[in-house]
């Protein structure tokens, strides 16, 4: 039980290190995506420990899983894809303006122009 939590913690750290230390903008956005996915995994894992069956009401079910984190994670997944789409559009716009995807080169080209 604690091994799964430690693996999710390692995915979180991987996404975070990708966000702050990679020089390519697309890899930073991939790190942001991994960060969001790891938290969704953590919530669904915690919600599945208190029951045996899927949360559908029927005559034969007796012990259902907690449905509240699942409803929260639906919203979280949709908002994750919204942030990814908007940030990728901004990355393409930066490439068209400065000609490179490397943040050090972008920074010095934007400083030379202003």
């Amino acid at each position, binding site marked *: 039980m604690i091994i799964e939590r430690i693996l999710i913690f390692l995915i*979180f750290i991987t996404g975070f290190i990708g966000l702050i230390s990679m020089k390519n903008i697309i890899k930073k956005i991939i790190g942001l995506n991994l960060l969001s996915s790891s938290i969704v995994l953590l919530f669904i894992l915690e919600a599945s420990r208190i029951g045996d069956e899927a949360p*559908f009401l029927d005559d034969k079910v007796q012990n*259902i899983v907690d449905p509240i984190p*699942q*409803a929260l994670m639906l919203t979280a997944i949709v908002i994750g894809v919204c942030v990814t*789409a908007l940030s990728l559009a901004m990355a*393409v*716009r930066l490439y*068209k303006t400065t000609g490179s995807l490397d943040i050090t080169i972008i920074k010095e080209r934007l400083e030379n122009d202003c």
Partner: protein
Amino acid sequence: MNKRRIFKIFLTTFIISFTILPIILSNSSWPTLARDYLFMHAFDETGASNTVSSIYLGYRLIDTLGETLVLFVAITGTMSILLNLHKQVLQGVETQSSLPPEKRAKNALRTNLVEVVASKLGPIILLFGLYVMLYGHKSPGGGFQGGVILASAIVFLALSTVVKTKLTNSNVLSRIESISFLSLILVTTYVVFFPNGFFRNIATNNSFASATMIIILNIMIGLKVGTSLAVMIIAMMGGQHDY
């Protein structure tokens, strides 16, 4: 410079890991009060036997309205950046010219694999998306899931060159999106004029009519999400499918 950078990254990661480590190492049990309440009362109060649907379409409808609004804002922002991509260039820097969109003859067939998959599977996925959207109150599915599958089906129809429908026309899709978004806002906010509060079912005693509200909400959310995602992806592909 290299050693200092590695040290800074390590220090930041070490500090950030303190924000999530208490959840990893905690021993307390998950509370079961909410699950027991929903097990007893979810079907009587909202009419849906899918408890996840009864939460985000029954008890917490305002969160779903906010999420639809966030999706709308994100797609509007992406489209506005998309349509102005070729405007200004920094002085004196050679940018690599982007590929012009879809530069091929209009009646040229693609490879056989893509053509078969796109044109023959497209209508089947469309039907499956409508099924997932309409049965959200009894089986897994609902508005968002059905909407995204609908968007994938419309993208399949736009990828093929054999099928010519009006469903890939951007004007038709945006008109459907406007009508469904307007009726979603009207349906969720008309209860301000009633004394029962925000979203109570009109007919809770009659179990046939109380699931109608959830079906109507699912249809509107699904149509809005599906058509707006399809408009954005068709604009990314070049936007030339006006039959």
